């Protein structure tokens, strides 16, 4: 009798909502267990479709979910903690956070994906579609089909269709499988390729069709890879350009060999750090601290440059080799001063949100945002330098002093002031390079040393005194380096480039964009 009643109640419980609720409660204890238990529970929660699962899993993802000493799972709700099973407030004493590892995170992504496929937020739906794609499972097919039926945003649709194809590939419907292979092949994405390669071994009967699809993807990827290599080269080139622009002024225009140039770059990076720390307390300003750093770094390093020029370098005009040795000493001092002031450890310079992650250019070419911004920044700085030299009074005076100091002086130009300003300008550019480098490299006292020789090579290769040469030099060195890298490795590529430049300079001692004519002779 009791058995009969039990059966009836079980049947009743099996009615959908009840069954789901039961699955929800049943999955909870696992969350207090080891990582394997947690992952299993998460999967069950994701499959449950229970409305309470979503806030719970989100809390878990954000590390807010607590477990009590007795194994009850506690969900934070404002300041209170609620028992996840009963929804009643619970005692928080002795509770500790449920910890995550990669396995749990992976399960979470799939579970959340399934639950969020119909989320009202398009960004969440897109992320969910990507997550479901990764956690491909035949169980997702109906979910995806339902979601697709309602979806209107093309980009999300594409992603959902991919996810559906990937899920169908591990399903049992042979017809759908064949179709999925073709659709995955047409997508041209790296992830689809991975899915196909994985499926190849599991489905020997479809090997030919899969190979065809993989080959289609490979063709699309080859073009994209070439474009990405080009981008990497331009990105490296823009870093070189930024590092070398200041030298193009101080060395190219004034003929001063400033071995402390790298240290000015480093100072610029530290200025970025200081500005960031100053903005830290002001939430609306914090994401823009990097923008503020640009003028700040320029001013700081320009001031240091002016000081260096007026205090030391001007006594050594006409003796470039002595300047070289002296500025080497200055570089040592600057490095150690920063080390003592800020500590030898790296300093953390955050990337603002708009500089993080990857974006897709037309043609699905993936480029990292920070690199893209640095290329843009490099070109803007180059444009500003060009404008400063060609369009401003200062630029005119600078060119006059460089061409004929004596005559410029007789025309009333204060050549000493122009020298100081020119040097300060070049140093300020180094500081701006430091702002960019703080986004890709260490902010440490040694930051500048890695760039000094490359910068000199860029200036000499491009042609001393030519901004166009510096641009072309930097970009071509960057691209050639990246073209060689996959074959020769990072080190040899660099060695080859260095040797090539040395040989090139033997052929054309004045560089790519040589100043011609009698002026260049003297």
């Amino acid at each position, binding site marked *: 009798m009791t058995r009969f009643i039990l059966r009836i109640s079980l049947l009743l419980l099996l009615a959908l909502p009840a069954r789901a609720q039961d699955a929800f409660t049943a999955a909870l204890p696992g969350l207090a267990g080891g990582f394997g238990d947690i992952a299993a529970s998460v999967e069950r929660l994701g499959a449950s479709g229970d409305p309470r699962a979503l806030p719970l899993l989100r809390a878990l993802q954000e590390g807010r979910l607590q477990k009590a000493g007795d194994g009850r799972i506690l969900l934070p709700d404002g300041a209170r903690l609620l028992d996840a099973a009963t929804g009643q407030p619970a005692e928080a004493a002795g509770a500790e956070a449920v910890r995550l590892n990669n396995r749990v995170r992976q399960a979470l992504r799939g579970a959340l994906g399934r639950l969020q496929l119909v989320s009202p937020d398009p960004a969440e739906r897109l992320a969910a579609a990507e997550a479901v794609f990764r956690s491909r499972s035949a169980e997702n097919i109906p979910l995806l089909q339902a979601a697709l039926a309602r979806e209107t945003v093309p980009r999300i649709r594409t992603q959902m269709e991919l996810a559906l194809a990937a899920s169908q590939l591990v399903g049992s419907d042979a017809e759908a499988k064949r179709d999925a292979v073709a659709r995955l092949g047409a997508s041209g994405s790296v992830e689809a390729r991975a899915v196909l390669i994985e499926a190849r071994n599991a489905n020997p009967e479809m090997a030919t069709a899969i190979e065809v699809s993989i080959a289609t993807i490979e063709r699309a990827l080859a073009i994209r890879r070439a474009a990405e290599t080009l981008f990497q080269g331009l990105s490296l080139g823009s870093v070189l350009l930024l590092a070398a622009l200041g030298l193009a002024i101080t060395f190219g225009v004034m*003929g001063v*060999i400033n*071995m402390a140039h790298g240290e000015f770059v480093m100072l610029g990076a530290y200025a970025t750090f200081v500005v960031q720390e100053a903005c830290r307390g002001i939430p609306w300003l914090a994401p823009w601290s990097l923008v503020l750093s640009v003028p700040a770094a320029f001013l700081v390093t320009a001031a240091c440059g002016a000081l260096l020029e007026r205090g*030391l370098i001007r*006594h*050594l005009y*006409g*003796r*470039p*080799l*002595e*300047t*070289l*040795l*002296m500025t*080497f*000493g*200055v*570089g*040592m*001092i600057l*490095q*150690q*001063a920063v080390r*003592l002031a800020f500590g030898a450890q790296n300093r953390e310079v955050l990337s603002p949100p708009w500089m993080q992650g990857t974006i897709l250019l037309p043609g699905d070419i993936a480029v990292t945002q920070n690199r893209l911004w640095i290329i843009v920044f490099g070109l803007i700085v180059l444009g500003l330098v060009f404008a400063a030299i060609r369009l401003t009074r200062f630029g005119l005076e600078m060119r006059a002093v460089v061409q004929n100091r004596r005559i410029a002086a007789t025309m009333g130009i204060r050549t000493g002031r122009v020298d100081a300003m020119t040097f300060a300008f070049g140093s300020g550019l180094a500081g701006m390079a430091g702002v960019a480098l703080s986004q890709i490299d260490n902010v440490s006292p040694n930051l500048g*040393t890695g760039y000094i*020789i490359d910068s*000199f*090579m860029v200036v*000499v290769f491009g042609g001393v005194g030519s901004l166009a040469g510096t641009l072309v030099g930097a970009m071509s060195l960057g691209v050639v380096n990246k073209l060689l890298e996959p074959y020769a*490795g990072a*080190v*040899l590529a*660099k*060695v080859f480039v*260095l*040797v090539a*430049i*040395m*040989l090139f*300079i*033997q*052929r054309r*001692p004045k560089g790519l964009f040589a100043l011609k004519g009698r002026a260049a002779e003297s």
Partner: protein
Amino acid sequence: MSASIASPAPAGAARLTIRLVLIGAVLVLALLPLLNRLPPDSALYVSDFIVSITGKWITYAILALAIDLAWGYAGILSLGHGAFFALGGYAMGMHLMRLIGPRGVYGHPTLPDFMVFLGYKELPWYWLGFDHFPFMVLMAMAVPGMLALVVGYLAFRSRITGVYLSIITQAMTYALMLAFFRNDMGFGGNNGFTDFKELLGMPLNTDAARAALFYASLALLVVAFLVCTRITQSKLGRVLVAIRDAESRVRFLGYDVTQHKLFVFVLSAVLAGLAGALYVPQVGIINPGEFSPGNSIEAVIWVAVGGRGTLVGAVLGAFSVNALKTWLTTVAPDLWLFALGGLFVAVTLFLPRGLIGLFSKAPK
């Protein structure tokens, strides 16, 4: 540009004084290993540390001499002389590695330890012959010499001078540094060579070996100094000074400037290579850090501090800067870079003729 540089030929009486001072200095140096044999409580006792560190400084002085010959006289400011020094050092290092034989950690009869654990099966061809001392000595001279010949020929033929030459030679040593850092080069990568056992049958960790290396270095310094003096006081020396001050004018006199520069550059590289070869067994390690551009610049600064274009100044500079560095890195480990950097600034600004300039009157 360098009108203030002293002429290589001081007047007779002054020259005699300099000679006496130099002979005295050599004798004092020669006494050091002997004083090391005195009982430690003796007033004249010189510690092992002083002997070994002085031996190292002597090789630095030879390097400085080589740089001064090229820079102070011919106006060739190479910022890559550390590369020649390091190449000589690597030649010696390879010899010493070969001599370890089966005493290595893995007990392989021919392969050095690093090759064993990098999975080499046999010795690369460019390691052959380095087990013979004379071959090593030849290579310690020939490899830096050949490199100088090639780089110098290309540069001088294209009339690359002044700062351009400095930048190119700097790139040369930088490229070599990157290349030697690669483990695939077969030179031990970043670790380079170390844990040497013996040289010419002498165990290296003995006082006798230290004294022998000390005297070998001192002898090379004296010979190098005499060779450099002979060159600078010959007509060749005057041609070099002429090239330094007005290169194109020398061409119009019918001198093949490329040949003269090449001669002195190669000779200077060979000297640097030999100095490097003697340096390695005394410090017990050679690694790609020796190629770092900073090292070469520092060596140039020794010459500038001592006073360039004087030979004596180069030696004086190498000793004094290194002594200062050794002392400061112990008494002021956090602040020594300020002192050294400050010294470099001060010397270029206030003592264009270096420490030697303090002792001799200006030429005008």
